């Protein structure tokens, strides 16, 4: 029996374990935001090229996820939230994750270059480097601002999607980047407020650990306030319109209300109701981002079909 268990520990992982290394949930967000970035661009793309490009962007994101799991295997083992990932669970060897990450990084970048253009491919390569090296290897364990700067990696996909169509960067793609970039800190700090034990046990310098929960609550509010003009500003560019603006107004008002509620609470109150407000804010943050990009997509659809008779905003 023991020799079989030994085999289980040395690379007899199932196919699903390798898929799990690519962080499929993160990939789904990347697919969605990159697709929106591609579809709202003023240049039309052949559907096959668009499909291939989105798949290769997702593959690149998966590759950086595998590299992140390889590097963070030690802290993943300590944290409750990540303990069941393939490496800490003993299903996949760290070296396999590294190999898979490097191989898929190369394949995704080269294939995106061949499918779309080399600018978007270089952008994807930079994003993988940023997430795996700048965020995972450097910032995550060294500064409480890890989430802020690391959030840039998750914010690049719509810019890459835009670059696939246009071959460059525009104010619209920068605003889509800024929307995710500014959204990331309140999203993750809300999570950190009710998952604090995990981060302190893994000795990750999350803001809640280094500066305390009161400071984290202030930061959540500050970033949410700064996020609102970015989100609304996108509505006045060529990708915006009345539908997006109406959605952004409502969503930002609700998000701000949640952030104010978090700011006004202290730990005693939060502990008493099991961090209900923080958890609700975290769940709403996912909807917030999804609906913003959904509204941008709706605007692109309305423009394409000439609904409301506007060809631009």
């Amino acid at each position, binding site marked *: *029996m023991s*020799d*079989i268990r030994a*085999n*289980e520990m040395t690379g*007899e*992982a*199932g*196919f699903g374990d*390798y898929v799990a290394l690519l962080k499929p949930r993160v990939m789904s967000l990347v697919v969605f935001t990159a697709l929106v970035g591609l579809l709202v661009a003023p240049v039309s793309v*052949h*559907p*096959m*090229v668009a*499909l*291939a490009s989105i*798949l290769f962007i997702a593959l690149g994101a998966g590759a950086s996820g595998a590299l992140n799991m390889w590097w963070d295997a030690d802290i993943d083992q300590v944290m409750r939230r990540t303990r069941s990932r393939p490496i800490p669970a003993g299903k996949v060897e760290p070296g396999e994750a590294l190999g898979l990450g490097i191989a898929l990084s190369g394949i995704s970048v080269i294939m995106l270059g*061949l*499918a779309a253009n080399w600018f978007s491919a270089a952008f994807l390569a930079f994003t993988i480097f940023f997430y795996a090296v700048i965020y995972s290897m450097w910032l995550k364990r060294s500064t409480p601002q890890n989430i802020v700067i690391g959030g840039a990696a998750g914010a690049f996909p719509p810019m890459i999607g835009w670059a696939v169509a246009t071959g460059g960067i525009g104010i619209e793609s920068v605003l889509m980047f800024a929307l995710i970039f500014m959204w990331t800190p309140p999203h993750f700090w809300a999570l950190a407020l009710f998952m604090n034990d995990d981060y302190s046990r893994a000795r990750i310098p999350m803001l809640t650990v280094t500066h305390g929960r009161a400071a984290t609550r202030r930061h959540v509010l500050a970033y949410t306030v700064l996020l609102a003009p970015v989100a609304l500003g996108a509505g006045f560019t060529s990708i915006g319109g009345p539908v997006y603006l109406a959605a952004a107004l409502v969503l930002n008002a609700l998000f701000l209300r949640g952030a104010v509620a978090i700011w006004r609470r202290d730990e005693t109150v939060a502990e008493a109701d099991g961090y209900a407000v923080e958890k609700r804010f975290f769940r709403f943050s996912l909807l917030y981002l999804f609906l913003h990009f959904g509204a941008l997509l709706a605007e692109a659809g309305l423009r394409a079909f000439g609904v409301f008779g506007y060809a631009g905003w």
Partner: protein
Amino acid sequence: MTLSRDHELHKRRAGRNIGLALVLVAFIALVFGLTVAKVQRGGMIEAFDHTFRPGLAERAE
């Protein structure tokens, strides 16, 4: 202990192989579709191949 053919280990290995096969088939289909799309769209797909081409010669002048 001897391993029978249908041991859980073999099932997992077979699942991995089938998964990889499907991924490779999907990749081939994707590259094929991409090639068809690029060829249909036209563009410059003819390169110098050591024979005289009036089209290329005229451009050089």
